[in-house]
């Protein structure tokens, strides 16, 4: 422990050097500004700003990139809340209640609580990282394919909670998402599946145009259909800041989100993806009145946003202690390290202690800067919403088109976005919600991959799923949750039956 404080002090010594502070600030600012463009998610923002750091000294460049990452992530949440446009998987759930809040004129409160929750979750997770990083990595390494399979199955199951409509339809949407996820090369055999001879589909449908189509474009179509006297999607503001009641509702969600995010973020097999979904499900489960969710419940923003940021911190754990990137953003950071002549890996802590602890300290500073940058900006973002919708929607469309185009420098991804815009609009009309579909799409390939890998490793024995303690524990938790889910839905069915008898 004394070591820990000594190390953090050394790290702060690096991080608060004026030049590093400046780069942290520039990074967070640039990240926010680029990340807030619809259609440009955190991965794209990082890739695009990466070359900017090549000429900088090692510490400054890594610190700046970390700043860009936080900024971009928060920028992505901003578009999710304001425009119903998730830039990455984790902000999908933010759209559910965040955009509803914006529609009720409470965008300011949603944005503020997201920033405050992120700061809290990020700060705690940074401390967790500093204290337990190496231990957590070892624990994460003991997760094998069978355990991942059970965990993902669990994640898919609780995702049913995401929808506030029909359970049958939301299960169907998860299945549809998993089905879409099978498009592309089969990683176990190299077989192309459902690619219809298009090389562009070999690596599957890209998440970004899929999400922009289902959420962004479909939302625009829906808004354009009821052109009445009420112009614009969003009602005028009631208040820019969260109310006392908002804070009272949010803080337990923030605490739970921190715990969920910190734990899941460490898993190298994509646990961070699950963090915001898991937090949302948890909030809805513990809420006294779950029916508020999906209609602008502030806990539905506070919890997932906190979990997301906490997971973003702890997902650095495998990178820093073992050099193992857990997602695309971390892989970009590995590239940045290598360009700086630092091979990230188990030797980094020994060879470059100042860099290691400096980066960890600057994570905390980056989170703080994020709040400092964004609280004043909230007023600006919210003002943007008052722009007449006739002028706002073409701009959003254009950003989305350019964003999709730039993914692979080809019109193909724009066409994918168009297709899913049409499908998304159809789904709205059919009373189906796209969020469970997106979750199925992201987790489906991981489910198949780990199922098949587990069976290959066990040489075809299904017992592997119950023989491994981690997997068994998760499966038991899954069974318990299933029973808990089934009970209220049985009750609801009875209610529906009663309601129909009355009518």
């Amino acid at each position, binding site marked *: 422990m004394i070591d820990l404080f000594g190390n953090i002090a050394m790290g702060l010594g690096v991080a608060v050097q004026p030049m590093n502070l400046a780069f942290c600030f520039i990074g967070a600012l640039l990240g926010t500004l680029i990340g807030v463009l619809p259609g440009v998610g955190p991965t794209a923002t990082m890739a695009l*700003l990466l070359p900017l750091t090549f000429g900088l*000294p090692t510490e400054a460049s890594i610190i700046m990139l970390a700043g860009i990452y936080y900024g971009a992530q928060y920028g992505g949440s901003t578009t999710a809340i304001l425009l119903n446009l998730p830039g990455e998987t984790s902000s999908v759930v933010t759209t559910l209640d965040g955009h509803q809040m914006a529609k009720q004129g409470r965008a300011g409160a949603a944005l503020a609580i997201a920033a405050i929750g992120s700061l809290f979750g990020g700060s705690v997770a940074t401390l967790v990282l500093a204290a337990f990083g190496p231990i957590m990595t070892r624990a994460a390494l003991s997760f094998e394919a069978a355990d991942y399979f059970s965990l993902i199955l669990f994640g898919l199951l609780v995702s049913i909670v995401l929808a506030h409509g029909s359970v049958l339809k939301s299960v169907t949407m998860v299945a549809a998402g998993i089905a879409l996820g099978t498009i592309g090369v089969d*990683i176990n055999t190299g077989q*192309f599946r459902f690619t219809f001879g298009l*090389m562009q589909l070999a690596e599957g449908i890209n998440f970004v145009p899929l999400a922009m189509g289902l959420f962004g474009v479909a939302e625009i179509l829906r808004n354009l259909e009821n052109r009445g006297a009420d112009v614009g999607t969003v009602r005028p503001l009631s208040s820019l800041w969260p109310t006392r009641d908002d804070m009272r509702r949010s803080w337990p969600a923030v605490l739970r989100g921190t715990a969920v995010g910190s734990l899941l973020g460490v898993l190298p097999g994509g646990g961070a993806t699950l963090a915001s979904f898991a937090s949302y499900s948890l909030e809805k489960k513990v809420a006294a009145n779950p029916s508020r969710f999906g209609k602008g419940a502030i806990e539905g923003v506070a919890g997932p946003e906190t979990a997301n940021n906490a997971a973003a911190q702890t997902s650095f754990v495998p990178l820093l202690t*073992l050099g*193992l990137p857990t997602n695309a953003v971390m*892989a970009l950071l590995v590239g940045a390290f290598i360009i700086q002549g630092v091979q990230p890996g188990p030797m980094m802590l020994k060879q470059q202690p100042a860099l290691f602890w400096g980066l960890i300290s600057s994570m905390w500073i980056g989170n703080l800067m994020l709040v400092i940058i964004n609280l004043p900006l909230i007023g600006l973002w919210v003002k943007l919403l008052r722009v007449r919708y006739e002028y706002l929607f073409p701009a959003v469309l254009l950003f989305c088109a350019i964003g999709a185009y*730039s993914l692979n420098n080809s019109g193909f991804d724009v066409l994918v976005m168009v297709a899913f815009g049409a499908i998304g609009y159809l789904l709205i009309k059919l009373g189906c919600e796209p969020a469970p579909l997106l979750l199925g799409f992201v987790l489906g390939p991981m489910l198949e991959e780990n199922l098949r890998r587990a069976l*290959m490793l066990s040489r075809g024995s299904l017992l592997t799923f119950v023989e491994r303690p981690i997997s068994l524990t998760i499966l038991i938790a899954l069974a318990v949750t299933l029973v808990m889910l089934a009970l209220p839905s049985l009750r609801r069915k009875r209610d529906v039956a009663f309601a129909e008898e009355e009518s």
Partner: protein
Amino acid sequence: MFRRIKTAFAAALAAGLTLGSGLTLGAGGAAAETAWPLRNITIIVPYSAGGATDILARKVAEGLTTILGKTVIVDNRPGAGATLGTTLAANAKPDGYTLFLGQVSSHGIAPNLYTTLKYDPVKSFVPIVYLDAIPNILVVNKNLPVNTVDELIAYAKANPDKLNYASSGIGASTHLSGEMFKAKTGIQMTHIPFPGSAQAITSVIGGQTQLMFDNMPSAYQYVLSGDLKALAITTLQRSPLAPNIPTVAEAAKSVDLSTFEATSWFGLFAPAGTPKEVVARVNAATNELLKKPEMIKFLHDSGAVVGGGTPEELARHVDAELAKWKGVIDQAGVPKQ
């Protein structure tokens, strides 16, 4: 992904905020000797920014910028296992302003895996120069009771169907190295593919799988830290980064593996029809670059064996690689698309 940032913007930012940072940008106005190059040159990289291929391309671009006196830009065109960017480069205007960073995938493995490719590795490109080769390194979990290649072979024969080897995906050199090893030694191992090298090496460290032929620079870290044991490297010469690790050919005494070679190699190409003078200029400039101490140091740090030589040598290398991987893929029974 966005392709590049204006280098000038990066330079301005760096120069404005750091004191004495050493960015080399060839805006220094060295007068060109002939008409070419009149404008910026683009190197198409079929992988995204930050990967091994991209990093190499950026180093080469930086070096060529200084030598040629015009800015050389890296244009990342990822997708479909490098085939999208390669097809794009094959169809680019052969005016000498588009180059291509080819590698073992685009010019060795992919043409043998995909029947629907819209480029021909030999006919669609003119080779310019061989850049370098990064060995794969045979690493095993630290708890596996083997310390040499011979012990591994003996262990595999004593424990049939117990070993799993990880790879970064079907058709990757990490996979085909393993298949080649199985074929030449006659041992039984199960192939466990992962989506990418990081997840694969994680599984070896964690003990879920037992061994892997991973690219040298990333895997070597875990050898130094004691998380993995290195048995051999897959080039015919030892690596300057780790001269104490034997080659597979040297290490195997019980089996003849003297021709065992599997590397991640890189070379510069241009679209077919690019003027001969341009090819000669780029070849000369790159050979000059590959003799510079800082470039050699960069390559050695990544475990690479430095290349160089004539366009004809690269052409012969491509032919040999295409033939070699065809044999391995046919023998391993990897399905073709």
